[in-house]
């Protein structure tokens, strides 16, 4: 967001409710939004709704009818929700069925359930009842406990909310009522600093003009005050005495917190209502003694509650790949089952005539009178059954528990990201936020970073820097002296009032502004600062300071630019001290002056300017206009003073080339007749029911012309701390950084230089066209130039060979969504840096889509304002900056943080770790489960293919719950392949994630081959060692259980890089836990394997087997690992060695490799 007003807000004077929607529509036409819908009540998306609504009368079918102060009639049909809220999902009775129902929505649980149900069929009962249900039950139980706890907390907070008190008009008297009892149609009175209980339409306030100030921090996080208005028709009524009755017809409840469309029939008149007439639940009334309103939406139908939806859900790239490998694993599973059932069929067929008498088969049942087949349903059925049984036995081949482990690991990773001290922004007191829990590991694979400029790269804290007044440039040296004296202040009732923010001033200009006289230049300076102080929507609020004799004036407003200008004006002695809807009071060099505000045209992004009509005390009327240079020079009467205009233009150019934001101010005196014409047309326009916004705009355009140029201001939006370093790191990490901004090209380029995005060595390609043909031509030229440049310099240093592309929004209109896109992509992918200036919000999304749809590379978008929402949602990973511009971007983002520079630790450190951990964890889980299944499978081949398991059923169930579950999760959360220091010092290490080094199909196959070898070792060493011995199956089963569990834990231990006490505890603890479990199982006399482990443990052969298995199974893995480590070391390996033997690092090429602490 970069223009004059960061957001196009609906809270305007005089109900100009849908002006802003015009602009949103204009860029909607140029860029298609793509396939993704808009989540949440995002401003940009919903603007279009407001747009269509303003043109359409509310249809009776779509309307909700609210009879003011008549809740009975309003609620006759019982169709409106009461005001009690319930965010809790369950009650005591519904908890079990509903929670189970919700849990079974997940595929993993369905799989468990189907397997468990299959197992209950008597023919298929592989496991006992208890053992078969245990995995499912334990997962369900854990989740249910978690859900129940969360729900209990929600219930608790609901209860507090519902029992808050508000005063409600009952029988013409205000009485206290619990929030939950408030009904739609009732009249509610709210006093200062109270929270609004439901969405109300303002009727009257303590302010005679019907203004109420509200704080919406609970709703959208914006702390500045917003103004809301009661309608002329109602504002003078006092509800107790003067009964208001009327009918409000408003739209059905929706989640758009910035839009409201309704009309009110009162006293036979029809009044239209807009978003500036409604106060939403959760807002707080400030600076207003009381406000009275009628409830229109209550409880769950309030906009706040409707917006109460969870974080977006995305699926990570790694998980998508993992699902492909899981398909492979299912294929393995089916293969194993087919092999087993086919062999079983062959075996049965070959022994067909022996089956009746075979002591270990005994097909015939002689026990009951007649002889019949026992549990034998014919060859075909037997094959079918053995297929199903093998599915049950080999079920964990598909590592369903992996999904649950991954969730836990991500929660753990998110915990660490949130707690990271180095991602805490002390200035705004915000922690890192992890809103999406599914894509932590995507942070390690980002290739493209799309960044907004204002508020993202810059602080969005505007500082007035220079002024050009009537062609004179005041950009001299700044002095601090004046600031130290405390700046400009005034005396009010013996108290000192001073502006809250101190501004550095130009001494020359200060001197001039102090000595006002009748000279021309002095007048110009007067008008200029008056325009700065008056032409805005800033509300001054007097707050106490630490010094009792001193009060501070806090300028509250939505645009940081305006704030900066007003503070600047105050510093030069033009202090705005009061604003109501009708007048403003400005202290000019110690003299209070009152101006009537006769009219105001709000900023809109189409006009790109705003104007205010001031009535002077001497009853002259002047209009002041302030806006972007492009829009202002069109309406300035150049004939008046051409030299001044030219000089100002030159100043503007020099300001913007050092990265300053510029605004131009103009003025015109209005004659009485002009003013009258304007007033009539304005009144007609503002009361129009149809197309009000368009009409108002027309009125504004008619007024804003033939202006005298007063001057221009330059505001600095400083780069955030650490941005240049951050961008350098990102670029070193081989990420392509694109900056998308609404700013002018010069500003964008200068910011590009100061943020080290552009360097002087780079060659720049600028595309700046306004027709499709010329776009095509410059794209083609650019491609050729680009190829040449890269060819020529490819051998030399990187920076010289890199090309920066600078393209503007107008050109993009002709390129995006046409066949030129392909060329732009080709060009952009060759460029190291891309700067897009003057782009509209949806174009930002279009640019992200350009890359996302054409490459496999991961994209990340970072921004802070409502205009970045579409881009954030479009990118694979969306990051919101919780900064000055409200919470829209944060609400739509997957991750949110306070500063741009945190992107570096987020991606290079946490992203890297998360990716490495998750990638390893997935492979390890595949291995772990497949190993166990294969060991079971080999045994089945020795049992006449009958799915017997030597390993007890309890051990097979506990295998993935107790024996091996904890270490993989702990390691997945805690292991670090490299220290934060190395990762930050060598951003290139990030490349391993971009190259998918830790998880790919090749690694999967390598892992599977390793698994096969390990399973062969684990199975056949005991078989051959105990061949022709009197070993019983329980003992051999225990040996296999222990061998497999030891193996998977030692396998994990071999790969652990950082051994903390937690890793030790989990790995060795698992082994001990397994031993304890096996001992407990073998101490139950009614199980066939009673005492087997003790007998086994006392024999030497057991220990020798176990030891041999562990060593033999790990040898190939160890050899390959060591060989690769030595001969083909990956970057991570080298960096790890360097970390360990730090001394050896110093001998290297300076600059590139140095460990800085």
């Amino acid at each position, binding site marked *: 967001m970069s223009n004059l007003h960061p957001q196009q807000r609906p809270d305007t004077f005089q109900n100009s409710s849908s002006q802003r929607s015009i602009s949103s529509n204009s860029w909607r036409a140029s860029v298609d939004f793509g396939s993704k819908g808009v989540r949440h009540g995002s401003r940009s998306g919903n603007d279009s709704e407001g747009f269509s609504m303003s043109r359409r009368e509310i249809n009776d079918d779509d309307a909700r009818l609210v009879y003011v102060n008549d809740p009975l009639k309003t609620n006759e049909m019982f169709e409106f929700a009461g005001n009690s809220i319930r965010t809790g999902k369950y009650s005591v009775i519904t908890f079990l069925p509903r929670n189970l129902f919700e849990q079974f929505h997940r595929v993993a649980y369905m799989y468990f359930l189907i397997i468990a149900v299959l197992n209950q069929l008597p023919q298929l009962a592989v496991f006992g009842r208890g053992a078969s249900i245990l995995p499912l039950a334990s997962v369900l139980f854990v989740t249910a406990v978690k859900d129940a706890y969360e729900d209990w907390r929600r219930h608790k907070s609901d209860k507090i909310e519902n029992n808050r008190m508000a005063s409600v008009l009952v029988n013409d008297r205000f009485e206290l009522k619990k929030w939950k009892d408030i009904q739609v149609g009732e009249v509610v009175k709210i006093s200062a600093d109270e929270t609004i209980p439901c969405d109300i339409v303002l009727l009257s306030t303590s302010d005679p003009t019907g203004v109420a100030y509200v704080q919406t921090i609970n709703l959208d996080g914006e702390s500045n005050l917003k103004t809301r208005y009661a309608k002329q028709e109602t504002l003078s009524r006092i509800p107790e005495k003067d009964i208001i009755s009327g009918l409000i017809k408003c739209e059905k409840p929706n989640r758009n917190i910035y839009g409201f469309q309704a009309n009110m029939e009162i006293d036979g008149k029809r009044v239209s209502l807009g978003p500036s007439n409604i106060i939403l639940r959760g807002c707080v009334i400030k600076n207003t003694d009381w406000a009275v309103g009628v409830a229109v939406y209550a409880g769950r139908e309030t906009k706040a509650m409707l917006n109460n939806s969870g974080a977006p859900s995305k699926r990570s790239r790694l998980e998508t790949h993992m699902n492909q490998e899981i398909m492979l694993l299912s294929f393995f599973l089916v293969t194993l089952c087919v092999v087993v059932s086919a062999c079983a069929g062959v075996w049965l067929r070959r022994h067909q005539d022996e089956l009746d008498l075979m002591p270990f088969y005994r097909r015939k049942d002689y026990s009951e009178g007649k002889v019949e087949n*026992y549990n034998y349903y014919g060859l075909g059925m037997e094959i079918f059954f053995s297929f199903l049984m093998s599915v049950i036995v080999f079920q964990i081949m598909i590592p369903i528990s992996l999904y649950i482990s991954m969730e836990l690991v991500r929660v753990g990773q998110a915990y660490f990201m949130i707690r990271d001290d180095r991602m805490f922004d002390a200035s705004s007191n915000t922690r890192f936020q992890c809103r999406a829990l599914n894509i932590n590991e995507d942070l390690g694979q980002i290739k493209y970073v799309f960044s907004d400029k204002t508020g993202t790269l810059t602080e969005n804290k505007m500082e007035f820097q220079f002024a050009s007044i009537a062609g004179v440039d005041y950009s001299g040296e700044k002095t601090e002296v004046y600031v130290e004296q405390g700046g400009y202040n005034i005396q009010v009732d013996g108290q000192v009032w001073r502006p809250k923010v101190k501004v550095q001033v130009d001494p020359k200009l200060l001197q001039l502004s102090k000595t006002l006289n009748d000279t021309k230049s002095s007048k110009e300076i007067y008008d200029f600062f008056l325009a700065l102080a008056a032409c805005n929507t800033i509300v001054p609020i007097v707050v106490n300071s630490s010094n009792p004799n001193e009060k501070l004036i806090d300028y509250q407003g939505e645009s940081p630019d305006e704030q900066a200008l007003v503070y600047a004006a105050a510093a030069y002695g033009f202090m705005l001290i009061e604003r109501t809807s009708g007048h403003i009071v400005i202290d000019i060099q110690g003299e209070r002056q009152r101006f009537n505000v006769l009219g105001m045209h709000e900023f809109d992004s189409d006009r790109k300017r705003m104007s205010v009509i001031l009535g002077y005390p001497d009853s002259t009327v002047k209009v002041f206009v302030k806006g972007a240079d492009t829009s202002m020079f069109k309406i300035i009467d150049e004939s008046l003073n051409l030299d001044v205009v030219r000089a100002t233009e030159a100043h503007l150019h020099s300001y913007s080339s050092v990265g300053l934001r510029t605004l131009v101010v103009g003025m015109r005196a209005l004659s009485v007749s002009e003013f009258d014409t304007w007033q009539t047309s304005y009144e007609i326009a503002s009361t129009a029911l149809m197309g009000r916004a368009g009409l108002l705009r027309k009125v504004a355009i008619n007024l804003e012309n033939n202006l005298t140029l007063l001057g221009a201001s330059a505001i600095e939006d400083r780069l955030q701390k650490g941005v240049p370093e951050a961008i350098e790191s990102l670029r070193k990490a081989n990420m392509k950084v694109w900056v998308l901004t609404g700013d002018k090209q010069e500003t964008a380029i200068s910011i590009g230089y100061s943020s080290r995005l552009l360097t002087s060595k780079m060659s720049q390609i600028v595309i700046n066209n306004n027709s499709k043909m010329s776009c095509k031509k410059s794209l083609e030229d650019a491609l050729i130039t680009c190829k040449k440049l890269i060819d020529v310099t490819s051998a030399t240093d990187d920076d010289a060979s890199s090309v920066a592309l600078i393209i503007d929004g107008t050109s993009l209109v002709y390129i995006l969504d046409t066949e030129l896109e392909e060329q732009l992509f080709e060009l952009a992918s060759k460029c190291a840096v891309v700067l897009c200036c003057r782009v509209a919000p949806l174009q930002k999304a279009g640019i992200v889509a350009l890359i996302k749809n054409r490459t496999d590379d991961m994209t990340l978008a970072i921004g802070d304002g409502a205009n970045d929402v579409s881009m954030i949602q479009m990118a694979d990973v969306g990051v919101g900056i919780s900064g000055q511009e409200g919470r829209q971007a944060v609400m739509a983002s997957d991750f949110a943080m306070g500063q741009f520079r945190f992107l570096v630790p987020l991606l290079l450190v946490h992203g890297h770790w998360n990716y490495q951990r998750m990638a390893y964890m997935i492979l390890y889980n595949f291995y772990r489960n497949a190993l166990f299944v294969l060991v079971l499978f080999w045994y089945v081949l020795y049992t006449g293919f009958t799915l017997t398991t030597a390993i007890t059923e309890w051990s097979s169930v506990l295998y993935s719950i107790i024996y091996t579950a904890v270490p993989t999760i702990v390691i997945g959360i805690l292991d670090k392949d490299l220290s934060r220091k190395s990762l930050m010092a060598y951003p290139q290490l990030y490349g391993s994630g971009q190259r998918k080094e830790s998880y790919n199909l090749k690694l999967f196959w390598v892992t599977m081959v390793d698994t096969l070898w390990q399973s062969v070792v684990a199975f056949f060493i005991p078989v051959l060692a105990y061949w022709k011995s009197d070993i019983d199956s329980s003992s051999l089963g225990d040996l296999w259980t222990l061998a497999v569990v030891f193996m998977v834990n030692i396998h994990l231990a071999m790969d652990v890089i*950082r051994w903390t006490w937690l890793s030790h505890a989990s790995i060795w603890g698992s082994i001990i836990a397994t031993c304890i479990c096996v001992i407990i199982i073998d101490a139950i006399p009614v199980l066939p394997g009673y005492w087997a482990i003790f007998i086994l443990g006392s024999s030497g052969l057991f220990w020798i087997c176990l030891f041999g298995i562990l060593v033999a199974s790990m040898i190939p893995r160890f050899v390959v690992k060591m060989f690769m480590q030595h001969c083909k070391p990956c970057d991570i390996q080298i960096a790890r060695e360097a970390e360990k033997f730090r001394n050896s690092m110093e001998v290297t090429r300076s600059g590139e490799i140095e460990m800085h602490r």
Partner: protein
Amino acid sequence: MSNVTTPPMNPNSSPPRKINSHRPTYSRFTQQELPACKPILTPTYVISAFMIVTVVFVPIGLASLFASRHVVEIVNRYDDYCAPYGSRSDKVRFIQSDADKTCNTTITVPKHMKQPIYVYYQLDNFYQNHRRYVKSRSDQQLRNKNYENDTSTCKPEDSVNGTVPIVPCGLVAWSMFNDTFSFSTNNNVKLPITKKGISWKSDRDHKYGKDVFPKNFQNGSLIGGAHLNESIPLSAQEDLIVWMRTAALPTFRKLYGKIEVDLKAGDTINVIMQNNYNTYSFNGKKKLVLSTASWLGGKNNFIGVAYLVIGGLCFVLAMTFTAIYLVKPRRLGDPTYLTWNRSPAGH
């Protein structure tokens, strides 16, 4: 191999805390800076690891082989010569008939055998681990006489005529091995066989009830194997206890008894067998095995060979890696190997 790194204390560890600050409380845990040991396998460690395996495995392998060599084992397959020659159906008819099934053979002791000499019977191709078979038993019933009727898992050998429960029920008990062996030396001196203590003590004490007596056992129309003395409790029926420990693999041995005298090399032993057990119906083999035992169990060279192979392999690997490290040395942490240093235009 391992050193514990101590990360520098964070300077912000105790910042002046504002009221209501959301700053995460600093701890080494939350900052992922727990003290940790980060082992790196340097060439020395790798080679030493292989050498250690060699040094450990080769002696164990040799010891195992030595132990196995010292075990004297006599295996005598008798199912073939104890039955009339002819087709399988003849043999099945023979074994099912009431004919005298006594069978004699003599065994020559090849080497001095020290007592105790274990007498095993070995069955081949008998799937004691078959799913239908292993499930057909009731461990509750074996242990507690109050659970006599707990035969639901024992089908198809659960009850007589569907009403009276069989104790012990199930296919496993029903198919109990019932060949008998008696040994005598050349001069007709009987060699006593101890059958006491051939089962696990834990089984006798806890798994089989002292007050559970066989009932209705082998009363059906189809006799599967041995009969049990109904006056002896299950806990004392050691043959049953041994049989009920189902074997892990289709070729298995079960302990029949122990001969507690030494046998000298060249001794001939006469064996009188009752060849009652029907393995002919499924082509199973029956063997009589006399074996001494070592600390490793019976005669089996596999473990010894396997350990020697692993040990040898690790020696070869140790040498190979030494060669690799000598021929192509790489300084640990050498930054010239980094991808971005190897290819300058690798950006």
